[in-house]
């Protein structure tokens, strides 16, 4: 039996429908990331699961018990969970007291609280600051206190809303490391919302894509990343080449897609005449200066129109009659002496093309 189950959840604020018909199940010990752009309804869904709000319609079950409506069961269920808000408030008290609050509310003994809190302070590396007022902490430290407070109560379910939003890169990796430790040491069920696709991939075993109040796809990170089910998801998960076309032949699973003059070969079961999008991840495209013999079925010649370096990666836009975007390492871009208006061959495999049916 799943630990958390939501069925047909709708949430409306006035005229605005924030969540539409959300159904999902999360098993004990599972780590689920809800990914989606800002404003997609991730926070609202987490608030409903944590029982901070009641849905306009639909049902919420916690450990098999219907906790949708007000009542004592809601407090009991909420006490088995902990929710780290996107912008957590720290209480105007010491770091120690901030962490101890949740335990005090549960009526734990003073001695047990002390032992527990000191242990948690050790884990999150705030032992030396424990009597400092939490109001004086920096953003990254506040987030650490917020997570410490949450894990101190040893929740069965830990809900995290954008745990690393607005943090600097060092704090982000610290927080991610902390979350990973919690996953390993406590075997906690975790549901986290993030707009950072890569973070979802790093931490979660299953991903749910939430766009415009609807869960559009769930699956393992690899699956969502490599085989997005529609154009919106493809765009969100970083597929930069999404090319419209029509299938003109299909030879035992190798389809030819006419994209207006050029033909892309892809592995797909769609039949002739189907209107599709061909999705090619920019990192799957290799660039060469001359035509090479390879098993890759797709090779196009074109001129470089733009180069942008992002850290050690160079993003290259190529006009092959249609636009292709490729990512190469800065080093190989320099070795190939890539520059604007230089002619290059862009090559990718038929298996590197993910085909999505277009819905109008």
């Amino acid at each position, binding site marked *: 039996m799943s630990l958390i189950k939501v069925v047909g959840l709708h949430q409306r604020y006035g005229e605005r429908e924030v969540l539409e018909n959300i159904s999902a199940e999360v098993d004990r010990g599972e780590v689920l990331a809800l990914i989606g752009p800002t404003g997609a309804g991730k926070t609202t869904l987490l608030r409903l699961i*944590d029982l*901070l709000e009641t849905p306009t319609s639909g049902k919420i079950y916690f450990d098999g018990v219907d906790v949708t409506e007000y009542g004592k069961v809601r407090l009991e269920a909420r006490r088995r969970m*902990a929710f780290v*808000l996107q912008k957590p408030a720290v209480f105007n008290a010491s770091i120690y007291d901030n962490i101890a*609050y949740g335990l005090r*509310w549960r009526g734990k003994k003073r001695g047990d609280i002390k032992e527990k809190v000191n242990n948690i302070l050790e884990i999150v590396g705030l032992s030396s600051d424990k009597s400092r007022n939490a109001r004086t902490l920096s953003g990254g430290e506040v987030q650490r206190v917020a997570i410490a407070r949450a894990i101190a109560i040893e929740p069965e379910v830990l809900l995290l809303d954008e745990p690393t939003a607005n943090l600097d890169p060092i704090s982000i990796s610290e927080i991610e490391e902390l979350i990973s430790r919690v996953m390993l040491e406590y075997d906690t069920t975790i549901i986290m919302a993030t707009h950072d696709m890569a973070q979802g991939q790093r931490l979660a075993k299953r991903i749910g894509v939430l766009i415009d109040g609807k869960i559009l796809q769930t699956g393992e990170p690899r699956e969502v990343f490599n085989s997005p089910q529609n154009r919106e998801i493809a765009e969100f998960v970083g597929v930069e080449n999404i090319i419209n076309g029509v299938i003109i032949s299909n030879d035992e699973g190798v389809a030819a897609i006419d994209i207006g003059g050029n033909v892309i070969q892809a592995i797909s079961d769609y039949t002739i005449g189907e209107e599709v999008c061909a999705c090619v991840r920019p990192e799957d495209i290799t660039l060469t200066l001359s035509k090479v013999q390879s098993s890759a079925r797709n090779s196009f010649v074109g001129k470089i129109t733009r180069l942008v370096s992002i850290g050690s990666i160079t993003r290259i836009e190529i006009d092959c009659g249609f636009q292709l975007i490729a990512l190469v390492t800065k080093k190989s871009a320099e070795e190939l002496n890539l520059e604007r208006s230089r002619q290059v061959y862009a090559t990718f495999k038929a298996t590197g093309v993910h085909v999505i049916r277009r819905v109008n």
Partner: protein
Amino acid sequence: MSEIWQGFIKAIELIVSLDPEVVEIAGRSLAVSVTSTLLASVICIPLASLIHFHNFHGKRILINIIQTFFSIPTVAVGLFVFVLFSRAGPLGGFGIIFTPTVMVIGQILLITPILLGLTISALSGVDKAVVDTALSLGASNFQAIGVVLREARHAVVAAVTMGFGRAISEVGVALMVGGNIRGFTRVITTAISLETSKGELELAMALGIILLCIALIVNIALNRIQQR
């Protein structure tokens, strides 16, 4: 000018010599006002939380009305309580008119709007995320309200201080329903009023200074609580 100076000297004399009548009057002032402030706080802080944490029709209007009553004249409250508790009044049967008890009731009514209004605004000043954070860490609704009150403690104590200040400094209620009976309902403010009309300006001024000293001591005490 010399009267102020003489009043000051007299005040020091009265305080240093612990003049029995002055001590008695000052003690009664303090007792009546502290009692009314404590009782009003016990009523108003939970009531203000109730108003703040519930959404209902007319909430804005209710708060506006409460704020309007900040400036109700003390004599108006005095009159209202007098009419209520006078022998022929609807609550006359209690027979408490011209007693310290009814003075306490009058002062509670007088400072209730201030305590309610300022506590509500103190609670509104607390970050909305505090309630959600508390609930998400497993607080019950009551525990969450407790946290918000704790977060707002400085402003809540300030509200109580304001209430006490208005209670101890008012003369309308104490005079009209207390009656300024010597040794029974006479408090500092009513005594000042009487001594002034008798021409005993030095004594009146001395009492005024003592009133300020009491206010100072109470404020220091409340500040101590605030800083904890």
